[in-house]
């Protein structure tokens, strides 16, 4: 959500560009795929998967400058499909949100999860001893502020971070916020051909949603109360 707000504050006027920048901010946590694979590999034994894979992999390969550069390249390739003239700016902002993710992990990810700034050139892991864990109140305050801002944005501008999951999801959400549950029916439905064309992208988006959910719950052992 923060990445989306950053993209909007950076005056990116096209939804696709905001989407690329916002997903780039989430990209470093794509290493959750390794954890999901490990859980399957170890026959759903999440303790073994955590000890042998997640503890080793998380933050090492995707929380560093190399990954930030890789994010910039992918963002540039995606953005140049829509507006080549602005692709460089989108790529730069994408790299910034990816790098910000690292900074936020150092400050608010807890002292036990270092990032590896110069991997693979250096194996040095960097963290702050005073870093507050994920479940601490500052992160909760930030989360609730972002949720409130999401609703305010949807109410007054008709767009919100739900753009990450597609224009229709965002239109539906903005409709509900602005006009109640009947408001979403005002939205124009796309043609069958458009729906078919968007199906693969939609599947990818929903798989990513599931992965992000797993990324949040996995370190908690799928018990959010812990």
């Amino acid at each position: 959500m923060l990445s989306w707000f950053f993209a909007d504050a950076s005056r990116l006027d096209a939804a696709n560009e905001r989407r690329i920048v916002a997903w780039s901010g989430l990209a470093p946590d794509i290493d959750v795929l390794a954890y999901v694979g490990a859980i399957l590999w170890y026959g759903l034994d999440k303790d073994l998967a955590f000890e042998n894979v997640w503890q080793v992999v998380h933050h090492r390969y995707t929380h560093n400058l190399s990954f930030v550069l890789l994010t910039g390249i992918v963002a540039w390739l995606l953005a140049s499909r829509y507006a080549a003239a602005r692709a460089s700016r989108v790529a730069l902002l994408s790299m910034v949100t990816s790098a910000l993710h690292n900074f936020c992990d150092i400050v608010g990810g807890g002292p036990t999860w270092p990032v590896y700034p110069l991997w693979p050139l250096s194996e040095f892991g960097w963290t702050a001893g005073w870093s507050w864990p994920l479940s601490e109140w500052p992160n909760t305050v930030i989360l609730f502020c972002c949720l409130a801002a999401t609703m305010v944005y949807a109410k007054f501008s008709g767009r919100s971070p739900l753009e990450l999951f597609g224009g229709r999801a965002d239109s539906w959400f903005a409709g509900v916020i602005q006009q109640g549950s009947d408001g979403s029916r005002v939205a124009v439905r796309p043609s069958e051909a458009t729906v078919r064309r968007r199906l693969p992208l939609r599947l990818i988006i929903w798989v990513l949603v599931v992965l992000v959910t797993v990324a949040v719950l996995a370190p908690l052992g799928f018990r959010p109360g812990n």
Partner: protein
Amino acid sequence: MAKLFTALLYGSVAEAVLLAFAWPFAVSRDQDSAAYHALAVGVLLAFFASLFVLCALRLSAGRGDKAV
């Protein structure tokens, strides 16, 4: 005012990148450094404050489209 807060936003972002990637190699690897603590929290607050103001300004200006 937008220019001022845009400068503050990008300044805080640049500082955040330095703190995340360059500090342990260029300044200190002390994980309990008070200077690092103060700078990091200050940068975070500056980032949130400037982000909040810029988003509010953009909302009031009503810019941005919803084209997919």
